[in-house]
């Protein structure tokens, strides 16, 4: 798990006061080598109880979401609702470059730990807040969730079949995209603070990051062409042909964009099925020339794909530089030969649970490689290391804090 190579974020200290909606931000930074300290309430963060669980045993040490989202972090418990907890948090903030938080807007201010208060003791500090709707505006106090972000952020209206209700993507894509943007924004603010000495408050809104991520079917295009994007299954509005096609043993996804790709596809269909009509020059050119023939072209393509296996269409299509790819189940993804050859999945030695396999690096840095530096922390696992070892609290003071359930 660890190598001697340097880490990109060496010396960066991050405090994470985040639930499952923001924890991916801390993971991105921790796996790149930042010292991320996850601050949980005494007893542990509620996100430890999120299913699914390893071996289906509903135990707070076995939540797969928690184990995945908190790799490479250290963990302490602290009750910032109590004055003595807040005093400790302020001391931690003195040595931090960045604080990531997902509390309701205004909550940190009410506790005396808002951006202005923290900046007074640490002028270069960056405070990144991730919330459903941001820190300002009439909806700032609205409750959010993955569903609410997908709905208000425009992703949901355009996802699914026209005859079905709108539907969200699997997982927690809107929350995690907000967290990913928060990681980039935090880095932007840290780089700026490095040059100028001044930190800033970063205000991430899940609604806005969702709107940005889904902008292909967003306001800019609608204001320009007057067409409100709709749900249309797996086909794409502006790429014809596109979508899923049945094969003898599963299905493939196809997207044709450039004119040359259409010509290559038409030739293949002609060779395979004898279809002459598909070669008609009226189908050539940009996708816009083919929009009114979408259903007809889908039939031409299906006539070919249904006679072959997914693998045949995939590899022969790719040999012809046509973007045919398999529609994979999760079980097919974990067995994918390309991912296996790249050693994509990794193992993390999780105390008490053994080696837990999980997705690996999203990117490869040649000098400062991504890696998991330690498994997700147990509840309060680093209390002593940080409170005694780094803040210099005496043993009896620690015992008193524990007795008052501050830590």
């Amino acid at each position, binding site marked *: 798990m660890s190598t001697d190579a340097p880490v990109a974020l060496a010396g960066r200290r991050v405090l994470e006061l985040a639930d499952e909606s923001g924890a991916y931000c801390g993971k991105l930074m921790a796996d790149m080598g930042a010292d991320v300290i996850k601050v949980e309430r005494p007893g542990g963060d509620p996100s430890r109880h999120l299913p699914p669980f390893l071996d289906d045993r509903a135990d707070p040490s076995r939540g797969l979401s928690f184990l995945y989202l908190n790799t490479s972090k250290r963990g302490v418990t602290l009750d910032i609702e109590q004055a003595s907890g807040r005093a400790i948090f302020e001391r931690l903030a003195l040595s931090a470059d960045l604080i990531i938080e997902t509390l309701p807007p205004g909550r940190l201010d009410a506790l005396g730990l808002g951006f202005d208060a923290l900046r007074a003791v640490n002028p270069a500090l960056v405070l990144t807040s991730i919330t459903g709707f941001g820190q300002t505006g009439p909806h700032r106090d609205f*409750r959010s969730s993955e*569903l609410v972000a997908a709905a208000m952020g425009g992703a949901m209206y355009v996802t699914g079949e026209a005859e079905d209700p709108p539907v969200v*993507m699997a*997982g927690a894509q809107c929350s995690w995209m907000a967290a*990913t943007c928060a990681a980039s924004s935090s880095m932007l*603010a840290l780089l700026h603070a490095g*040059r100028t000495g001044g930190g800033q408050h970063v205000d991430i809104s899940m609604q806005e990051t969702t709107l940005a991520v889904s902008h292909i079917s*967003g306001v800019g295009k609608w204001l320009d062409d007057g067409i409100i994007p709709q749900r249309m299954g797996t086909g794409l509005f502006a790429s014809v042909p596109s979508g899923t096609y049945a094969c003898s043993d599963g299905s493939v996804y196809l997207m044709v964009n*450039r004119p040359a790709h259409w010509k290559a596809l038409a030739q293949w269909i002609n060779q395979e099925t004898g279809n002459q009509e598909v070669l008609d020059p009226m189908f050539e050119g940009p996708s816009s020339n083919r929009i009114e023939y979408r259903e007809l072209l889908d039939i031409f393509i299906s006539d070919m794909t249904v006679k072959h296996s997914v693998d045949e269409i995939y590899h022969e299509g790719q040999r012809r530089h046509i973007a045919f*790819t398999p529609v994979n189940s999760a079980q097919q993804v974990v067995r994918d030969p390309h991912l296996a050859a790249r050693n994509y999945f990794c193992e993390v030695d999780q105390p008490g649970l053994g080696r837990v396999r999980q997705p690996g690096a999203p990117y490869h840095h040649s000098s400062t490689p991504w890696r998991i530096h330690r498994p997700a922390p147990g509840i309060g696992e680093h209390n002593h290391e940080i409170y005694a070892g780094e803040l210099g609290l005496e043993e009896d003071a620690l015992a008193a804090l524990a007795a008052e359930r501050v830590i």
Partner: protein
Amino acid sequence: MLDRATEQALSDLKVVEFTAGMAGPWIGRFMAHCGAEVIRVESRKYPGVVRLYVPPWDRAGGVREEMSPWFTDWEAGKLFVALDLTKPEAVQLARRLVARADVVIENQSSGVMAKLGLAWEDLIAVNPQLIMLSSSGYGDSGPHSSYVTWGPNIEAMAGLGRLSGFPERDCTTTQFAYPDSLSALHGLFAILCALDHRARTGEGQRISLSQLEATVGMIGPQMMDCLAHDREPAKLGNRSLHAAPHGCYRCAGEDRWCVISVFDDAQWRALCETLGLGAWTDDPRFANAHARLENTELIDARISSWTELRSPHEVMEILQSAGVPAGAVQDTEDQFERDPHLKARGFFETIPHLTKGEVVATGIPVGLTRTPGHTRESGARMGEHNAYVFRDLLELSPEEIRGYEEIGAIENGD
């Protein structure tokens, strides 16, 4: 010297883009918004694909490279030069652009940069501190690394398409090429990490991103479930494994919907009281999340009979006032016309456009309160900034520029 008062987060940064598709250009869009000088290299033979969009009402007009609304979303704010990189003289110019840059972003098909003489080894020879991101569908190694994909392919290939949607559907994908956006945001973060390392050590580096791998990572817990137990994770549609009610409900009007998600007993009581279901607050069938999950269909039917009489925004306002997470399923018109919050936050950005006057575009959601960034302009044609870049930035003489133009290395408009 930069003016510290108006300085943006990336004011002193220089970026060169050799991008295609969408996962590359969106990184440069963010960086330009945050103050970086981003030079986008195109060639007439391979224009950026976002330029190819033809609105259905303008079919006869054909492809008009600067008019696509998607051009604004992916490309606004950059400097556009056109080079025929099949000519060695053009490659020399490209290397000179790289020599004065901090960051190169490329997402050409596998092997293209090397064939052109613009591989990592070629570029660090002219710029030893360079940071270079290569973003591709499959990454730069492995048996399928030369295969072609677009974002929507990856959504289905990564397992996200088959895990998403209602259980009776084979595969559900977005209309917005989600893996392109998510890869761009990961690529941006990867570059910023490398910049942090370089600021401390002076060392540049190469970054390689596989869009497939970045996408699989976004369903990490589901993949761990599959890896540990060798089974397909639950396909949930709009439901949750741990909360109920949790769904999308029909409202009054054509194709109008709202979502409601209840995570704890307090929210459940508030929902019941708002819907006039006071008797349900101490009904054992709904006593806790576990019981409510068992009786979801009964609950959903009652919620629908209430929402069907109201508009989605009315449902949202009523339930949010009671402390229940709820939201209107907004289409583009709702986002722009019926969302006072986005208006108050000034989310949509009005950007000067070289031919349309100005356009309104989805905001760049970085949320930097002190260095918010802005988008300079949109609507540039290929080679729009040739003169500025080669004359003013590279300081070539008029004769030199003419020479490159005559042999077709620098490509000018018709």
